[in-house]
């Protein structure tokens, strides 16, 4: 057989067309999610069942404890796969969209919940929870986090895992050396930062301000100020409220302190800020409560006896201290799980008072309470020590909730992009927030 150039081209075009249609076929096929979770069916015999869980790397310790308890109680085996926090949403979506179905349970960042639901990655747990109200005790979950972490379109897609909140940590020894007081307002925070940096001679800085251009870092830093000034990401009707006077004041406070912070905020992420604070080069930093564990560990910290936690400062006319739900995670069942009832049992178990109190009772797990009853547990007081009161106050109040609908991650990235340009001095706080507001309104 022989071929001419024309035959060759014809064959190529035919093959190309055939290949081009393959993605369409595969996309059609990807909707097959298998049998749905039967809420009335209990996983009575879990002995020998193997469950695979996709977890957030910093929460691996907490998951190990919860998984061990679950294994002891049920005879099931739990295999944990830790990944970075910023890959949780995309990896879960890819696991389901690709049809791989490697995982039975996903730990998720609540901001990505809308995207996960939209992707069809999560089982609807509404009926499952309703059937087991007596065991799960939803009324015991902290009202400030239960809905934001689990509810989309009036349906429940998971149960809370970790109620992360932020505090302001400061170095008492440095404060004494420079003759300054712990700040109660963001204005005072800026003054303290300026004073210490000015007198620190390039060896000590007033504050480490985390401004790396990703939602989980710069978004947190802005949210801390936003709640301090009494602002919100969304108004009561769910519309963006980024141009409110409170939001503008929060961004202005952030931009104003940046020149005096550890150089430079836009380069500063976890791996720059934490060593600077623990080594005594930065006098203040905002962080999750986990920092108290790191600061108390002499192998990691040079400020074991001098760190102190306080609630985030307030600003403007707001006088009520608050906190922001800057991270916060839940656990949910994958639609492609082959052991949905068993997976749901694990999700239920990890949110139980027993599991929560055991996890929180261990240092270094990085977990914060998700239940009211946990505040009364001796494990909570023992682990959180001097930060316990502030954590309880923050979570019991009205913490700032981040958006969690479809596209929330994308919108938050737009916000931090504009804020980063503001920190760089390329636009004012009002301009940055107006652009973000416009983008959020466009959807």
């Amino acid at each position, binding site marked *: *057989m*022989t*071929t*001419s150039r024309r*035959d*060759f081209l014809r*064959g*190529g075009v035919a*093959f*190309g067309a055939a*290949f*081009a249609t*393959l*993605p*369409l076929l595969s*996309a059609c096929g990807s909707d097959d999610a298998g049998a749905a979770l039967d809420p009335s069916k209990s996983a009575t015999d879990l002995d020998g069942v193997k469950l695979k869980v996709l977890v957030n790397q910093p929460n691996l310790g907490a998951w190990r404890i919860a998984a061990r308890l679950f294994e002891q109680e049920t005879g099931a085996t739990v295999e944990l796969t830790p990944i970075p926090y*910023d890959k949780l*949403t*995309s990896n879960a*979506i*890819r696991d389901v*969209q690709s049809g791989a179905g490697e995982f039975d349970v996903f730990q998720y960042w609540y901001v990505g919940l809308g*995207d*996960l639901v*939209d*992707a*069809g*990655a999560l089982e609807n747990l509404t009926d499952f929870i309703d059937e087991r109200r007596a065991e799960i005790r939803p009324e015991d979950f902290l009202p400030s986090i239960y809905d934001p972490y689990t509810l989309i379109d009036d349906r429940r897609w998971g149960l809370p895992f970790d109620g992360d909140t932020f505090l302001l940590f400061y170095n008492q020894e440095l404060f004494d050396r420079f003759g300054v007081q712990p700040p109660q307002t963001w204005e005072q925070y800026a003054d303290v930062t300026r004073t210490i940096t000015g007198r620190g001679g*390039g060896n000590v*800085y007033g504050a480490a301000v985390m401004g*790396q*251009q*990703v939602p989980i870092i710069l978004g947190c830093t802005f949210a801390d100020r936003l709640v301090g000034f009494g602002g919100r990401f969304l108004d009561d009707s769910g519309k963006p409220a980024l141009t409110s006077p409170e939001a503008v004041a929060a961004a202005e406070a952030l931009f104003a302190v940046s020149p005096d912070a*550890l*150089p*430079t905020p*836009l*380069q500063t992420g976890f791996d*720059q800020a934490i*060593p*600077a604070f623990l080594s005594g*080069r930065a006098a203040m930093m905002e962080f999750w409560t986990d920092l108290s564990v790191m600061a108390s560990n002499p192998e990691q910290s040079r400020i074991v006896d001098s760190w102190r936690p306080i609630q985030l400062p307030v600003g403007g006319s707001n006088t009520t201290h608050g906190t922001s739900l800057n991270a916060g995670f839940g656990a949910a069942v994958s639609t492609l799980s082959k052991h949905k009832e068993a997976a749901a049992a694990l999700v239920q178990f990890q949110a139980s008072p027993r599991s929560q109190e055991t996890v929180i009772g261990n240092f270094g797990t990085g977990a914060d309470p998700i239940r009211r009853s946990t505040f009364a547990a001796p494990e909570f007081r023992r682990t959180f020590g001097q930060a316990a009161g502030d954590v309880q106050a923050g979570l019991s109040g009205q913490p700032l909730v981040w958006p969690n609908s479809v*596209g929330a*991650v*994308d919108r938050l*990235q737009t916000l931090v*992009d504009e804020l*980063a*340009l503001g*920190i*760089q001095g*390329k636009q004012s706080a009002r301009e940055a927030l107006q652009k973000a507001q416009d983008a959020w309104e466009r959807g």
Partner: protein
Amino acid sequence: MRKTPASLSWPLIGALLLFSAFPFAYLIGLSLTDSTLARPLNGFSGLDNYADALASTAFKSSLWRSALFAVGAALLQLALGTALALLLAIRGRRLGWLGVALLLPLVTPPVMVGVAWKLLLAPVGGALPEIADTLGSSGFNPLGSSLGAFVSLLAIDTWQWTPFVTLLLYAALLGVPRELLDAARIDGASTRQLLRHVILPLIAGTLVAVFLLRLVIAFKVFDIVYVVTSGGPGFATTLSAFDIYRTGLQDFQVGEAAAATVVFSLLVGIFVTVVSRLHKRVREVAP
């Protein structure tokens, strides 16, 4: 004229379709549909994704920034690589320990290169700012400014890739006939004349080919941007590959990322076409 048996070309056709046509068709499909990470190929959307990509300030600015980075890196590395290759050629045919030293940056994983340079350049505790401070230049923080961060990435890329260019050009220099050089010297050519009129014309084809290779690789740079600057400060080092990654896999806008990829590919294609024509022309006139 005798025709080629068709069976000989089918493996090649199959490979091309599998590795080129299929991904490209899929990419086009994504760019023309309302695709997110959650819902790929979810309804025809016409050219909306292209409009969104071209309306994105971050993506638009990343195009010229990528072009500047790629051309700048390729030219800089070509110049340095040529100089180093000439020095090596003068030294002789045996590279010895120099060969190992040259290969070191090349075999280091790019992520490790990024991590190492990030630590070296860290404004607090970084080795280079500490040295600058000791020399009396306090506040040295190249990654803290737009220009400094861009130049730093260029320097890191050059540190990693110049050895590659050097080795290729060194091999080309070894191919220059000894008799030609001797004859030129007997005719009274100076070292500069020898370089300009004998050596460079002989290796011109290799020079352009290496430039083309580096240009394409530099356009695609992602890892050191991801590790060292994350595209910042602001968008100062957001190159197109990084912006496309962010749009597709962090913001989940896969359709827009696919459209941006097509636009970016067209830009790279323009540069490649121009340099390819130059390469062809050089080969035609080369001695």
